[in-house]
């Protein structure tokens, strides 16, 4: 058994564990997701997005009406 190879493998394993633990340690808003509160945020920004897009559609229609009234 060559100890060099084994120790190299162990080192690799050690580092990969370290890397794995590191990514899991990064603080993310996991609690917010677990509680389902994130859906509240999604709902709120969607209401605002649809409100603004609805307004854009409203303006678009007004403009179409005006264009139709214009003499050629």
């Amino acid at each position, binding site marked *: 058994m060559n100890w060099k190879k084994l120790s190299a493998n162990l080192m690799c394993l050690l580092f990969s564990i370290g890397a794995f633990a590191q990514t899991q340690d990064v603080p993310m808003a996991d609690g917010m997701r677990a509680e389902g509160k994130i859906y509240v945020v999604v709902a709120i920004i*969607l209401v605002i997005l649809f409100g603004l*897009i609805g307004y854009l559609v409203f303006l*678009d229609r007004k403009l179409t009406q005006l264009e139709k009234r214009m*003499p050629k």
Partner: protein
Amino acid sequence: MRSYWWKILAVLLVTYSFVGGLLFEVPRLFILNETIRALYFHVPMWFSMVAMFVTSTYHAIVYLRKNNPEADIASSSFAEAGVVLGMLGIFTGMIWANYTWGSPWDGDPKQNGAAISLLVYFAYFILRGSISNHEQKARLSAVYNIFAFVAMVPLIFIIPRMMSSMHPGSGGNPGFNMYDLDSRMRMVFYPAVIGWILLGTWMGTLLVRYKNVKEKVYELEETVR
């Protein structure tokens, strides 16, 4: 662009990016943490701004070749839409920088370049506003528009890549690898970019149509007098 299917597509894609941008998995990275999701909203602003400026410059060149007032209207309208998107990009970038770089404005080459190129485009509107003769206004601003676009390319795409910068995609290696954009993020990011470009185009075409109606109203007023 008379049909409206692309407007529905724009709404669908942007809505998808809002939902997916908040709910889908993202890479867990230090410093960025959950703010990595800002990429889905901040970066498409710049992509769509550049798309608007390309359209604006294209119409400026068309104006110089054919001297048709419609091209001038299109050129100025898409420049306006591009500036709106660019300002949203600057402000979202400042908020993001405040929490990841420590302050809203560090004099980062990418930030400075973006701010200068927006100022160059502000000067475009000042130039337009200062000339009353329609033809002169259209011709001068078309020439300036090409200059502004040519100035934007090094300011945003070349200089930040030659200098060290904290902004991803700067300081050497360009491209998307620097964004840590893995395949999960691409699934939201690219639809967001297409959606915002279409939404910007919608804003631009609304301005074009408004200005065309305004021109006709002026003409009618002239005939009545």
